[in-house]
């Protein structure tokens, strides 16, 4: 087990957290994990704002060294791309959550820059029809 700096990518943000690494296991202190993801470990389970997710196997999720990242992702049903040697991981969005958001037909808002670096949102065009066109040079 070694303590190391680890990068957790979540919702488009990059968080440097201290982690304890042993084999394929990465453990992160509950306070650091909460700062990065908003999820706190509480007696009733993993909680963020008003939402709590009960945790079946608490011993597998957390010990004195911290919260196991893979068990954390599994408890929340979130996809996890993990590279232990590179000290980095990306937490994704569950398919059910993304599918429900799309099926609501509410167009998800986003904020992206133009060539000059000015950030535009979809929401600022509310009240007009918007033709959203994704393209690429490839």
């Amino acid at each position, binding site marked *: 087990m070694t303590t190391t700096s680890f990068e957790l990518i979540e919702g488009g943000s990059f968080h440097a957290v201290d982690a304890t690494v042993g084999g394929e296991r990465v453990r992160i202190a509950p306070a650091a994990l909460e700062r990065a993801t908003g999820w706190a470990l509480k007696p009733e389970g993993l909680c963020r704002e008003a939402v709590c997710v009960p945790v079946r196997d608490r011993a597998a999720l957390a010990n004195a060294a911290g919260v196991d990242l893979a068990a954390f992702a599994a408890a929340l049903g979130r996809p996890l791309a993990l590279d232990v040697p590179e000290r980095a991981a990306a937490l*994704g969005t569950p398919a059910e959550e993304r599918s429900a958001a799309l099926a609501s037909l509410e167009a998800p808002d986003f904020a992206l820059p133009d060539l000059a670096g000015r950030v535009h949102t979809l929401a600022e065009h509310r009240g007009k*029809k918007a033709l959203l066109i*994704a393209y690429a040079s490839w």
Partner: protein
Amino acid sequence: MPITVALDRSAEDARPWIEAARPTHPSLIDTEHVLAELYHVVNVPTIIWIDEAGRIVRPNDNQFGTDTFTAFHGKASGPYLELIRAWVNEGQGALPADEVRRHQLLPSAETQLARAEWVLAWRLHQRGRAGAAQRHFARAAELAPKDWTIRRGSMPIVGQNPFGPEFFELAKEGAPAYPMDDVTPTRVAPRAL
């Protein structure tokens, strides 16, 4: 209002096209594939109609504004541009909610994991860890074989030509399809590879 979004690895990749087109509409750069995640964009170009209330009224549709590559993909731009004009001018062509839902492509657990793998790969690449990045790009491609935003979109990043031999090899598998392919009447010819 058209809003164009380039899913490119840098603003510089998109700049020549944007400067040549001199758009008056918002023309945005999405190096992190934010739009791919939010709208499940599995190929480009992908067009989505959003009404005045911010509702999706015509879901992801792989359509084209010109006929430059019609011989390759078999879709004509003319009928689609007519559809857009009829929507803008007369409010036609927006689909009822149940039709939109029926023709949405939704992500699976595998394709969402593929997006996380892609995000990790792109970050590792930017940190100068090309070898590790390549492993995660490959993993993303395995998980989402029908996603060219992942597979073709990573070609320039890993030093492959997205119009070269690797692309023609990929194209043999057939391009990703959206359910709207069966709805929008733009098909003019079978795919010619």
